[in-house]
């Protein structure tokens, strides 16, 4: 038996391998830096054109939905079609307010990281609706299993800003006691499940949580989110299998922001289909919604939540959006996508579109809008100052003893000895 074979060198290749591997398909996005972005082939349905089925409709009657795009706000900010949500202007204003708060928060904290006050930050620019709207559309007892790009959920539920920044600074008042990377929050009382840096692994937890609620005969539900890129992980498919098999009362959301760091969606799924259509093979409804249209987002969430609460099982929702900023503070998108791509995104900016909608009603005005911005800006500036007073990363931190807390419920001899070694 020849176990050890010396490597056989083939002829060296020339600079280009054109023509040699025609049968080997490698997908490429249609624009890289220097190219003109082309969104003309995006599958976008006209505003208001998609019919809204009964929430009790059986999945086999809904099979066309994953290939359409649910939209309500037209170019003038006026809602159209069957998916207009039943929503009061007060709630719309609340959504708008928290989306703006999210943007100001993200912008300021990104800068704070750049100033060296923390190690890492990640913003949700362009995707504010996906944190804020579910937070408001779902109930206090529903649990969210978020991605790292959904701080809006916490803001909209009134999570204290200073506490959030303390986590980002890992200072002595950090609610997570310095154990976790900035932005990987956890806030059970706010319906926000613990985040972790490894992507996708909590998608199945949402299903399990929902099944626990069903077991208890409660009509509370869970909502789990996953990025477009992360749908390639096994955890996505495993969660869908369990959700569909057990008709779990869960909403499973894909935040399709077109990018996964430098990788375009054509590497997470075949270009000829949609993420939402993955629902079909699991026999559950799949919706595709304009993620930059806060009203449409609200509406599909209400629909899916109603189904889940009434025993009709899980819904997969693809939130179609665009990551208009960098992946994180460690990233520079100009290296891999055209600079102007974000501005050319055909579905616009979610905050600007909701603002336009609000301005069509008498309840809102440019003047109020300006006042709101000032107020939010001040809130964040003051919270930031307060957190900085406690200390930025490195200036202040929780007691070192915290490092050993929570590994096990009760520390074993290792922690005791190692604390001693540290002189504690």
């Amino acid at each position, binding site marked *: *038996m*020849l*176990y050890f074979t010396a*490597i*056989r*060198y*083939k*002829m*060296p*290749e020339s*600079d280009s*391998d*054109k023509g*040699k*591997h025609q049968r*080997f398909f*490698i997908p*490429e996005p249609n624009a*890289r830096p220097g190219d003109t972005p082309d969104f003309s082939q995006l599958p976008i349905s006209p505003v208001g054109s998609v019919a809204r089925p009964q929430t009790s409709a059986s999945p086999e009657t809904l099979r066309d939905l994953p290939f359409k795009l649910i939209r309500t706000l037209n170019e003038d900010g006026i809602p159209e079609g069957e998916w207009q949500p039943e929503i009061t202007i007060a709630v719309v204003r609340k959504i708008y307010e928290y989306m703006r708060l999210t943007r100001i928060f993200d912008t300021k904290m990104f800068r704070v990281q750049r100033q060296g006050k923390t*190690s*890492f930050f990640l913003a949700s620019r362009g995707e504010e609706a996906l944190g804020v709207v579910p937070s408001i559309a779902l109930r206090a007892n529903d649990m969210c299993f978020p991605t790292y790009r959904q701080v809006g959920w916490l803001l909209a539920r009134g999570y204290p800003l200073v506490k959030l920044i303390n986590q980002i600074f*890992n200072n002595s008042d*950090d609610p997570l*006691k*310095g*154990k*976790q*990377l*900035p932005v*990987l929050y956890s806030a059970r009382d706010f319906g926000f499940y613990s985040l*972790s*840096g*490894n992507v*996708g692994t909590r998608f199945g937890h949402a299903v399990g949580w929902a099944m626990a609620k069903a077991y208890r005969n409660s009509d509370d539900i869970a909502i789990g989110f996953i990025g477009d*890129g*992360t749908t*390639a*992980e*096994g*955890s996505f498919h495993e969660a869908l299998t369990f959700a569909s098999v057990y008709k779990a009362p869960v909403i499973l959301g894909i935040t399709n922001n077109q990018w*996964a*760091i*430098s*990788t375009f969606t054509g*590497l*997470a799924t075949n270009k000829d289909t949609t993420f939402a259509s993955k629902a079909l093979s699991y026999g559950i409804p799949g919706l595709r919604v304009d993620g930059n249209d806060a009203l449409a987002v609200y509406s599909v969430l209400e629909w899916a939540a109603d189904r889940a609460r009434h025993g009709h099982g899980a819904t997969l929702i693809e939130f179609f959006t665009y990551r208009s900023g960098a992946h994180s503070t460690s990233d520079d998108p100009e*290296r*891999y996508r055209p600079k102007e791509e974000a501005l050319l995104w055909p579905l616009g900016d979610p905050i600007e579109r909701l603002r336009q909608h609000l301005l069509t009603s008498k309840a809102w005005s440019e003047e109020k809008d300006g006042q709101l911005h000032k107020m939010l800006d001040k809130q964040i500036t003051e919270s930031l100052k307060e957190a900085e007073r406690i200390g930025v*990363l490195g200036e202040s*931190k*929780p007691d*070192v003893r*915290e*490092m*050993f807390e929570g*590994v096990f419920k009760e520390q074993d001899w*290792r*922690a005791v000895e*190692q604390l001693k070694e*540290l002189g504690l």
Partner: protein
Amino acid sequence: MIMNIVQALNSALDVMLANNSEVLVFGEDVGYFGGVFRVTDKLQKKYGHHRCFDTPISEGGIIATGIGMAAEGLRPVMEIQFADYILPAYDQLVSEAARLRYRSNGDFQAPITVRAPYGGGIFGGQTHSQSPEAIFAHVTGLKTVIPSNPYDAKGLLIASIECDDPIIFLEPKRLYNGPFEGYHDRPLKPWAGETDSNVPEGYYSIPLGKAKVKRAGSEATVLAYGTMVHVALAGILESGVDAELIDLRSIVPLDVDTIEESVKKTGRCLIVHEASKFSGFGAELSALVTERCFYYLSAPTIRLAGWDVPYPHAFEWDYFPSPKRVAKSLKKLLEN
């Protein structure tokens, strides 16, 4: 040519892509972008997107696909963006890559190379800082290689790609752009001017399983790999102890002869690694030293390692083994 570790690894891949059309390089963000740490920079441009390409975010899928390609006869070199994210692929590595040749009695083999940045010191928190070498070393059939400088990084990566066994190639990310002795409050140092930063541009390989004596000494033996080689050296100098420092370079295969020879000479052994102590690779080293050198030992072997906790973001420098702790351990070792 002076190279940092990123450039040295890039050069190794470049050489292998040029020499052998069966070598393919792929992973998350490695194609157009050139990798989040830039290790595959410009390779797609130079060799075409059939040779160096992006993959879906699916570590299990990346390794499974690589094993299939390797079984057919290709030489896939895969990047896992952070060693922390290799776990979804663990089953593929343990149940498949490690055993394919054995269970098929040589009918198939899986000559894959899996590159992954590992280790702390970059404020990466729980999931960008871990050192998972022990969970691979425990699996028979996998080789685990960990360089500590640019010269070794290139030579060992080339040897890994040429090796017919599956290789886990762990790259000390804190050393990518410069050596790091654990003095986090001192200015960053570049590789230029360091020994082992002068890297030949062409082909060379360093045999796997050969440790390097980084510093000769007579009073104690210090065993380390990756980032800790630099921390250990600084600690030795701080302590004033005349310790011999051995850079293991690969933990499987392990150069047990060099270890044995040194410990028999010095009679004392300190093992340093970043990973948590309990059931860490230091436990294996300590057992080997005891089994082979028991009658030569003047003191119990000491393991200096990360605490038995997940990697804690705010406590980076409380967790990360420091030169000071190395010096303290050495002094303790010499007390007996």
